[in-house]
C-alpha cells in the first residue's frame, strides 16, 4: 500500500500547492510555495531510503489492487532494484530542483504553477517506474507527456514555447499510442499485464508471431519518449521551458522513462536479434547525431540538450547490446548522467538569469565574476567529458569495454567500437567547450546584463550537492555500484549476477586506449573549432521545429483539402453518394440472382389498370420533363397524385384513397404558397454529364424497385393479417379493419404519426416566425380589377361550404371505425374547408374568426390521444388498450361507444391544428404585418 502512497503523495503535494497558491501572494510567496512543495517529495525520498534494506535483500515488493479486471487494468505497484534506483533519482533530484526553483522563480507569479506541475510530474514519473501493471504504467506514461506539454509551454506567450510544447506532445503522445498498442499485444500474448507475469513469460513472448510487431510498437513508445533519432527533434525545442524544467524533465527524468521501459522489459523481450539490431542501431545513430550537433550549438541549453540526446543514445546502445555487463554499464551511466547533467542545466539557468543570455559566443570569462559557480561546474563538466577519476570516465570505459565484447552480428564487431570512440571524442569536445567558453575564452560580448546580476547563493546549493554526488560516484564507483546499481541490474536480468568489478575495468587496455583517443581527439577538435564552425555555418540551417510545423501545416492543409473536396456543401453530390451506396451493394448482392420470378402465377391484365398505370407513368415523366416550368409541373404532380388515389381506390384501399387525396391537395396548396416566393422557373444548369449520371442513377433505382416489386408480387403472400381480420370486430369493435389497425392494433404508430405532424407544424411556426420577406410584402394590398383580393362570389360559396364540409367531416369521422374514413381524413376535410376561408377571405379575416389558436389545438389533440391510451391503466391494461361497448338505448337505438373514437378525436384535433398552423404561417409571410407576428 505504501508504495502506492509513494506515487500519489506528490499529488497531495500538488493539491497543497494549489491551495497555497489560492492565498494572496505575499512578498515571500515563492518561498512558501517551495516549502509546501518540498514536503511531499521529501517524504517520498525518505520512504524510499527506508525501503533500501528490503530491496537490498533482493526482494521485489509488489502491491496490487483491482480496478478494471475486465481489461486487466489494476492499481499495481512494484518496488525492486530497478524501480528503486529510478524512483530515488526522481525524488532526489526532484527535491533539489524544487530548492533550485525557489530561487529561480523568486519574485515571479508563475512559481505556484510550476510547483503544482512539477509535483504532478513527479507522480507521473514515479507511477511509471513503480507500476507493476503495464496498462497502469501507461496511465502515467501519458501523464508525463501531458504535464511535460504544460511545462514546455510554461511561458506560453512565447511562440517557441507553444510550438515546442505541441511538438513534444504530438511526438511523445503518438509514441504513447504506439506503446498502448504494444502493451496490449504483449498483454494478449502473455495473458496478463502484471510485470511479474510478463517477465516470467519470455519464451512465450519471443516465440509468438506478434513479437516483432509488439516489440516495434513498444520501442516506438520508448524511443519517442527518450528522444531517440529521428524522434529526438522535440527535445531541443523543449528547452523553451524554464531551466528547472529542462534540468528535471529533459535531462534527469522523463527522457529516462523510455530507457527504463526497455530495461524493464529486457528480460522478457530482449536477447533476440531483432531487439539487438533495432535498439543498437537507433542508439548509435542517436549517439552520433546528438554528439555532432551538440558541438556546434552556441546556446548553452541547446548544447546540453543535444548532449543529452547523445547520452540517451549511448545508454540505448548499451541496453541494445543486452548483456548483463552492458546493462550494468547502461544503468551506471544513466545514474551518472543524471548526476552531471542536472547541475549543468542549473548552471545554464544561473548564467542565463545573471547575464540575460545563453549564447556562448557572447558569454565569456565568467570565472572572474562567478568563481564559485565555475568551481562547482567543473566537476559535472569533467564528468561529462569523461575525464579520469570522474564518474563519467568509468561509465564511458564500461561502454568501450562492452563495445569490444560484441561478437555478433558481424557488422557490429568493429563498427561499434569505432563509432563509440568517435562519439566519445565529440563529447569531450563539447564538454570542454561548454566549460571553457562560458568561464574563460576572453571577455564577454554585448551581454544584456553586465556585470552579471547577483544571484542568490541558495541556487548553488542543489548544484553543489549534485556535483558532490557526482564526484563521490567517481571516487567510489564500486560502492555506488554495489549499493544501488547492482540491484537494478539484477532486476533487469532476472538472474543473480556477480558484482561488477571496477578494478578489472581499470586494468583493461582496450578501453583505456579508446578513452585516450577520445580525450586527445576531443581537445584537438575543440582547439580547431574556429574553422570547423566556419564550415558548419556553410551547412544549411535546419530548424526541426519549422520542419515539424511545416509537416503539421501540410497535413492540416491536406486534411482540409481532402475534407473540403468530399464535403463540399453540394447536396446533389451527397444524394448521389447515398443513391450509389444504396444501389451498389444491392446490385453487387443480386448479380446473377435468378429468383426474380416467383412461383405464383401471373394475374391477368386489367385494361383499366393499364390505362391508369400509363397515365401515372406519363404524368410522372411529365413532371420530370417539365420541372423547369414550376406551375405546370405542379399540375402534373397533381395528376400523379390523383391517379395514385385512383390506384388505391381500385385496389381495395378506400381509406388510402381518401387520405392520399386530401393530403395531395393540401400539399399542392402548400407548394403553391411557397411557389409565390420562389422563381417561377428553374434554370437549366445541369450539364450533359450530370444529367447522364442522374439518369443512370434514376434508371438503376427504378429498375431495382421494379425488380423487387416483381419478385415479391410473384411470390405467395404469407402474413399475420389474418389475425387482424379475425379480431377486428370482436377485439377492436370496428368493421373497417384498416381503421381498427390504425387506432387499436397499431394505435401506437398513429400516435407517433400525429406527433410527427404536430412537430412539423410547430417547426414551421417556429422558423417562419422571424422570416422576413421584405420585397414581397410591399406588393400586397387591395388591388382593383380582375385581381381583386377576395372575389365576392368565391367568398359567398366558401362560407356556405364551410358548415357543409364540417358536417361531412363529422360524418367521415364517426363512420371511420366501420367504414372508410376516420379522424385523420375528417381532420383534413375540416382543415381544407377552413383553408378555403383563408383563400376566399384572406388571412386576417379568417384568422379573426377562428375559435382557437392552433398550437394549443395540436397540443390538445396529442393530449387527448395520449390520455385515451393512459385511460386503460385505470382498469389495469397496457397503454392504448381499447374498450368498446354497444349500448342499446330505449327510443334512441343502438349506439357504439369505443375508446378508439376518443383516440381518433385526438387525431382529428391534431390534424386540424397542424395543417392550419402550417398554412396560416405560410400565408402570414405574404401579409404586410407578417414577419415577427405570431399566427396560430
Amino acid at each position, binding site marked *: 500500500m505504501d508504495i502506492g502512497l509513494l506515487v500519489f503523495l506528490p499529488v497531495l503535494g500538488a493539491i497543497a500547492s494549489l491551495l497555497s497558491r489560492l492565498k494572496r501572494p505575499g512578498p515571500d510567496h515563492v518561498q512558501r510555495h517551495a516549502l509546501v512543495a518540498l514536503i511531499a517529495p521529501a517524504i517520498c525520498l525518505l520512504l524510499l531510503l527506508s525501503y533500501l534494506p528490503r530491496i537490498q535483500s533482493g526482494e521485489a515488493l509488489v502491491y496490487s489492487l483491482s480496478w478494471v479486471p475486465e481489461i486487466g487494468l489494476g492499481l499495481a505497484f512494484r518496488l525492486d532494484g530497478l524501480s528503486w534506483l529510478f524512483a530515488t533519482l526522481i525524488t532526489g533530484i526532484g527535491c533539489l530542483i524544487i530548492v533550485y526553483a525557489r530561487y529561480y522563480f523568486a519574485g515571479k507569479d508563475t512559481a505556484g504553477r510550476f510547483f503544482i506541475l512539477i509535483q504532478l510530474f513527479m507522480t507521473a514519473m514515479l507511477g511509471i517506474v513503480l507500476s507493476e501493471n503495464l496498462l497502469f504504467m501507461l496511465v502515467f506514461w501519458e501523464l508525463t507527456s501531458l504535464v511535460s506539454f504544460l511545462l514546455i509551454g510554461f511561458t506560453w506567450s512565447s511562440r517557441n514555447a507553444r510550438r515546442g510544447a505541441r511538438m513534444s506532445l504530438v511526438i511523445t503522445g503518438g509514441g504513447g499510442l504506439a506503446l498502448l498498442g504494444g502493451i496490449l499485444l504483449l498483454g494478449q500474448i502473455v495473458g496478463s499485464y502484471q510485470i511479474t507475469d510478463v517477465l516470467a513469460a519470455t519464451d512465450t513472448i519471443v516465440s509468438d508471431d506478434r513479437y516483432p510487431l509488439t516489440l516495434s510498437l513498444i520501442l516506438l513508445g520508448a524511443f519517442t519518449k527518450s528522444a531517440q533519432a529521428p524522434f529526438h527533434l522535440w527535445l531541443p525545442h523543449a528547452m523553451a521551458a524554464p531551466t528547472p524544467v529542462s534540468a528535471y524533465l529533459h535531462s534527469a527524468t522523463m527522457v529516462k522513462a523510455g530507457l527504463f521501459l526497455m530495461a524493464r522489459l529486457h528480460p522478457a523481450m530482449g536477447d533476440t536479434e531483432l531487439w539487438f539490431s533495432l535498439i543498437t542501431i537507433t542508439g548509435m545513430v542517436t549517439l552520433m547525431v546528438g554528439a555532432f550537433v551538440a558541438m556546434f550549438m552556441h546556446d548553452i541549453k541547446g548544447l546540453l540538450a543535444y548532449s543529452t540526446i547523445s547520452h540517451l543514445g549511448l545508454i540505448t546502445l548499451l541496453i541494445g547490446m543486452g548483456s548483463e555487463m552492458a546493462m550494468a554499464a547502461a544503468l551506471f551511466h544513466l545514474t551518472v548522467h543524471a548526476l552531471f547533467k542536472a547541475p549543468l542545466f542549473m548552471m545554464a539557468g544561473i548564467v542565463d538569469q545573471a547575464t540575460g543570455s545563453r549564447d556562448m559566443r557572447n558569454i565569456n570569462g565568467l570565472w572572474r565574476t562567478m568563481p564559485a559557480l565555475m568551481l562547482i561546474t567543473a566537476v559535472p563538466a569533467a564528468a561529462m567529458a569523461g575525464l579520469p577519476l570522474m564518474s563519467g570516465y568509468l561509465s564511458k570505459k564500461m561502454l568501450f569495454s562492452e563495445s569490444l565484447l560484441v561478437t555478433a552480428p558481424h557488422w557490429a564487431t568493429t563498427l561499434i567500437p569505432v563509432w563509440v570512440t568517435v562519439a566519445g571524442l565529440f563529447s569531450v569536445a563539447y564538454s570542454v567547450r561548454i566549460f571553457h567558453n562560458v568561464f574563460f575564452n576572453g571577455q564577454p560580448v554585448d551581454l544584456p546584463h553586465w556585470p552579471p546580476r547577483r544571484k542568490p547563493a541558495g541556487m548553488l546549493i542543489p548544484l553543489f550537492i549534485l556535483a558532490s554526488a557526482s564526484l563521490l560516484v567517481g571516487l567510489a564507483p564500486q560502492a555506488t555500484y554495489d549499493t544501488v546499481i547492482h540491484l537494478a541490474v539484477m532486476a533487469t536480468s532476472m538472474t543473480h549476477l556477480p558484482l561488477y568489478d571496477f578494478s578489472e575495468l581499470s586494468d583493461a587496455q582496450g578501453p583505456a586506449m579508446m578513452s585516450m583517443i577520445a580525450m586527445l581527439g576531443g581537445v584537438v577538435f575543440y582547439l580547431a573549432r574556429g574553422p570547423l564552425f566556419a564550415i558548419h555555418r556553410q551547412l544549411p540551417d535546419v530548424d526541426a521545429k519549422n520542419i515539424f510545423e511545416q509537416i503539421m501545416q501540410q497535413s492540416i492543409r491536406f486534411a482540409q483539402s481532402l475534407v473540403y473536396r468530399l464535403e463540399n456543401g453540394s447536396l446533389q453530390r451527397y444524394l448521389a453518394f447515398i443513391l450509389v451506396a444504396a444501389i451498389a451493394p444491392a446490385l453487387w448482392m443480386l448479380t446473377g440472382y435468378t429468383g426474380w420470378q416467383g412461383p405464383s402465377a401471373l394475374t391477368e391484365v386489367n385494361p383499366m389498370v393499364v390505362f391508369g398505370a400509363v397515365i401515372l407513368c406519363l404524368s410522372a415523366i411529365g413532371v420530370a420533363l417539365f420541372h423547369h416550368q414550376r406551375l405546370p409541373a405542379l399540375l402534373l404532380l397533381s395528376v400523379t397524385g390523383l391517379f395514385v388515389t385512383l390506384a388505391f381506390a381500385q385496389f381495395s384501399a378506400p381509406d388510402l384513397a381518401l387520405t392520399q387525396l386530401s393530403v395531395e391537395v393540401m400539399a399542392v396548396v402548400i407548394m403553391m404558397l411557397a411557389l409565390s416566393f420562389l422563381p417561377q422557373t428553374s434554370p437549366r444548369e445541369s450539364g450533359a454529364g450530370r444529367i447522364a449520371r442522374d439518369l443512370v442513377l434514376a434508371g438503376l433505382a427504378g429498375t431495382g424497385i421494379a425488380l423487387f416489386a416483381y419478385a415479391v408480387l410473384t411470390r405467395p403472400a404469407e402474413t399475420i393479417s389474418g389475425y387482424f381480420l379475425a379480431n377486428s370486430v370482436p377485439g377492436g369493435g370496428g368493421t373497417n379493419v384498416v381503421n381498427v389497425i390504425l387506432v387499436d392494433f397499431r394505435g401506437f404508430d398513429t400516435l407517433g404519426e400525429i406527433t410527427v405532424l404536430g412537430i412539423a407544424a410547430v417547426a414551421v411556426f417556429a422558423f417562419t416566425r422571424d422570416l422576413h420577406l421584405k420585397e414581397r410584402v410591399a406588393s400586397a394590398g387591395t388591388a*382593383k*380589377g*380582375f*385581381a381583386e383580393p377576395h*372575389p365576392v*362570389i*368565391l367568398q359567398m*360559396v366558401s362560407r*356556405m*361550404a364551410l358548415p357543409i364540409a364540417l358536417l361531412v367531416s363529422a360524418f367521415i369521422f364517426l363512420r371511420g371505425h366501420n367504414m372508410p374514413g376516420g379522424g385523420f381524413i375528417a381532420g383534413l376535410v375540416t382543415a381544407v374547408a377552413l383553408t378555403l376561408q383563408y383563400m376566399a377571405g384572406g388571412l386576417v379575416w379568417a384568422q379573426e374568426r377562428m375559435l382557437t389558436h392552433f398550437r394549443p389545438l395540436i397540443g390538445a389533440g396529442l393530449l387527448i390521444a395520449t390520455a385515451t391510451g393512459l385511460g386503460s391503466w385505470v382498469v389495469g391494461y397496457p397503454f392504448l388498450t381499447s374498450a368498446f361497448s354497444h349500448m342499446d338505448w330505449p327510443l334512441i337505438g343502438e349506439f357504439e361507444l369505443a375508446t378508439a373514437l376518443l383516440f381518433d378525436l385526438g387525431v382529428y384535433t391534431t390534424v386540424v391544428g397542424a395543417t392550419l398552423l402550417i398554412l396560416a404561417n405560410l400565408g402570414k409571410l405574404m401579409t404586410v404585418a407578417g414577419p415577427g407576428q405570431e399566427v396560430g
Partner: protein
Amino acid sequence: MNGSEMPLLLQLVITFFLVAGAIVALIGSIGLARLKDFYMRLHGPTKASTLGVGCILLASLLYFSYLKGGLSVQEALVTLFLFVTAPVSAHMMAKAALHRKLKCSPRTRKGPPDH
C-alpha cells in the same frame, strides 16, 4: 351480387343515365380539347362534365338504392356540391384568364374590357 336481378326498367334507366353521362362528359372534354380559345374551352367542362358526372352519380344513386334496399342519396350530395362549385371554379379561372390578358379567338365579337 350484381344487377341482373334488378327490374328491367330500373336497369334501363340506370343504363340510360350511364350512357348519357358518358356521352355528355365526353363532349365536354372534346370541347376542352378542340375549341379555339380559353374562354370558349371553359364552357365545355363547366356544363358538360358537370352534368355528365351528375348523370353517373344519379345512376349510382339508383343502383345502390336498389342494392342496399333503401334510398341512398349520398351521391346526390356530390352532385349538389359539383353544381355549386363548378360555376365558381369557372368564374375564378375566367378571372385568371382575364387577368393574364389571354388572347381571344379572332372570331370573337367583342373582347374583354381593359382594366
